[in-house]
């Protein structure tokens, strides 16, 4: 199964190459400052992508990520206005995210409705809930927010890892342990690889489904917390489309969307590539946002075709 590493190795190679291109084109691009910035700016997305990675590895999909990020932000901002400590509201929202995800998982498994449709309803529900909480952008005024932003771990070369990047690495470490060192992680891989065989081997399908969506909800809520702290505000449209970026990051990170094959750490590199493209285009200055969309699409295409060629032989070409 070492071939499952190939897509990830390719992802890392592309990241290094793109970084090199940036260094060749612009002065000061090849620095830990730029690297730290990419990690900081995209920490929330990478965290959400880690959760999405679990869901996709299990053979499902979660479209409610972006709305969850927005909803967590507006509720935290609202509670901030009532004088809550951001850590307290963050804890509440993370528990909410896990609960919401668990509900989605339960509906998916118990009612046998496709995850795509259930989490689509979740997308609408949470985005609508955002608008019910507030229609405006609300600030997070608690002093903790600026304390959080002030934390930074210096990197060699003048750059630094900001607190959101540190939180992301912590979340990633936990995810790697869950995926590769627990029986739940093994169940997720088994279920995504072949659901029927997994069930026959005694993998508790319902419990695993509920848990994997709960984990997805937990991570997207955590991503929302980081996004709210990073922007020190809650905005009802925040995170729109983040579910697509997260899925794209997962694919770029080498996970097969059919499930069962991939590594959790791939989400980090997938998210970093997306961030690097945006940074490169911002550095250029004359290119507009349209280029970010197009180049993300092109890269997605290249990776998917490459995956097909590399790992295609690993997946049974079944009738489905």
């Amino acid at each position, binding site marked *: 199964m070492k071939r499952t590493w190939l897509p990830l190795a390719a992802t890392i190679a592309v990241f290094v190459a793109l970084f090199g291109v940036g260094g060749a084109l612009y002065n000061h691009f090849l620095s830990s400052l730029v690297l730290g910035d990419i990690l900081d700016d995209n920490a929330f997305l990478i965290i959400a992508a880690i959760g999405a990675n679990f869901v996709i590895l299990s053979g499902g999909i979660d479209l409610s990520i972006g709305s969850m990020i927005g909803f967590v932000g507006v509720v935290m901002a609202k509670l901030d206005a009532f004088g809550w400590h951001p850590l307290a509201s963050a804890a509440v929202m993370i528990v909410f995210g896990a609960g919401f995800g668990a509900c989605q998982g339960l*509906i998916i498994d118990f009612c046998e409705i496709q995850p795509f*449709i259930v989490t689509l309803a979740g997308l609408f529900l949470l985005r609508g809930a955002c608008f*019910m909480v507030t229609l405006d952008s609300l600030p997070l005024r608690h002093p903790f927010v600026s304390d959080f932003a002030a934390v930074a771990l210096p990197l060699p070369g003048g750059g630094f890892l900001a607190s959101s990047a540190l939180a992301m690495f912590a979340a990633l470490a936990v995810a790697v342990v869950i995926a590769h060192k627990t029986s739940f992680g093994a169940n997720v891989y088994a279920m995504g690889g072949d659901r029927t065989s997994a069930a026959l081997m005694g993998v508790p399908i319902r419990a695993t489904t509920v848990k994997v969506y709960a984990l997805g909800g937990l991570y997207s809520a955590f991503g929302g917390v980081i996004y709210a702290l990073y922007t020190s505000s809650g905005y009802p449209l925040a995170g729109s489309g983040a579910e*697509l970026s997260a899925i794209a990051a997962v694919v770029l990170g080498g996970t097969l969307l059919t499930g069962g094959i991939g590594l959790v750490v791939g989400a980090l590199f997938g998210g970093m590539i997306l961030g690097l493209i945006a940074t490169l285009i911002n550095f250029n200055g004359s290119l507009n946002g349209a280029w970010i969309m197009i180049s993300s699409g092109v890269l*997605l295409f290249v990776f998917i075709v490459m995956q097909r060629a590399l790992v295609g032989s690993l997946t049974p070409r079944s009738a*489905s």
Partner: protein
Amino acid sequence: MKSFSPPLKISTPRAAPRLLWPLVALALIFAVDGIISPHFFAIRIVEGRLFGNLVDIVYRATPIAIVALGMAIVIGTKGIDLSVGAIIAIVGATLDWRIHMGDPHLLALAIALAAGVACGLWNGLLVAVLDIQPIIATLILMVSGRGVGLMINLIYGGSDPSFESPLLQGLSTGHIGLIPTRILVGIGLWIALWALVRRTALGLFLEAVGANPKAAELAGVEARAIKWAAYVISGFMAAAAGVILTADTHTSDPVSIGLYSELDAILAVVIGGGSLNGGRIYLLGAVLGAVVIQALTTSILTSGLPPEYNLVVKAGVVLVVLLLQSARTRAAVARLATGRKR
């Protein structure tokens, strides 16, 4: 490949109960509307065309219904087309660009529709030839398509993308006799698609490929070509909706035109009884699903509820319809009702 006539009707016996739940949903929505505002169903004639909430619901549902028709075909082959919103953006931008280049408007319309077909060919290539999972294959165009639309806008400067076109605006917002033209266009497309799917063998092939591609292939169906055709049809239908939406706003706005239309179209198909597991095409159900979604939106707006409740109510109703459709849920409810035995 020979086409058979008359085609085998494999879906007829189960069609009626499948349409039941969207009809129940529609009836419930209208019942609530009738209670909240007694004049909800009033239809008047203003300036030579029909006016009223019911007409408005169908009028506004038309673009999504057209997209949903194409989506129903793709879903019938066990595929999905996430790129329809992006196709709408590309088609709108193409239409606007050709009009600014001074093309006759009929030619601009044809080029715009061709752009949609080209998008469908691209999706079909990825799914049918490169064998990529539909959800990812169409994700590529979904992610990049709106960017392509923005680039097309830039070809002619993009400073003022607004345009005037009596022909196109007539198609979108005009009326023939009492009836809004776009509703007639929608019905025309529906009938054409129905004839294509149910009066030729294509529908049978599409459903066969969706139900069991291996068996279909062994039975002599060109599975790749059939799948490819499904995405081309979906691209064309999205293009038609894109023309209507673009002509409606008189401008090309690739960032926001048709936003979430892929989600609405998929929902419409599912509400109309289509299963994402493929193998069945319900055109009437897809249209009905689009009307249910729009009836819900219009009802929320006219009921005096704040518009910010729109999405939450929509999500709630969608969930209820889905739960009702799930045989397992109905069984569980029935078990609870008849004395809780496990």
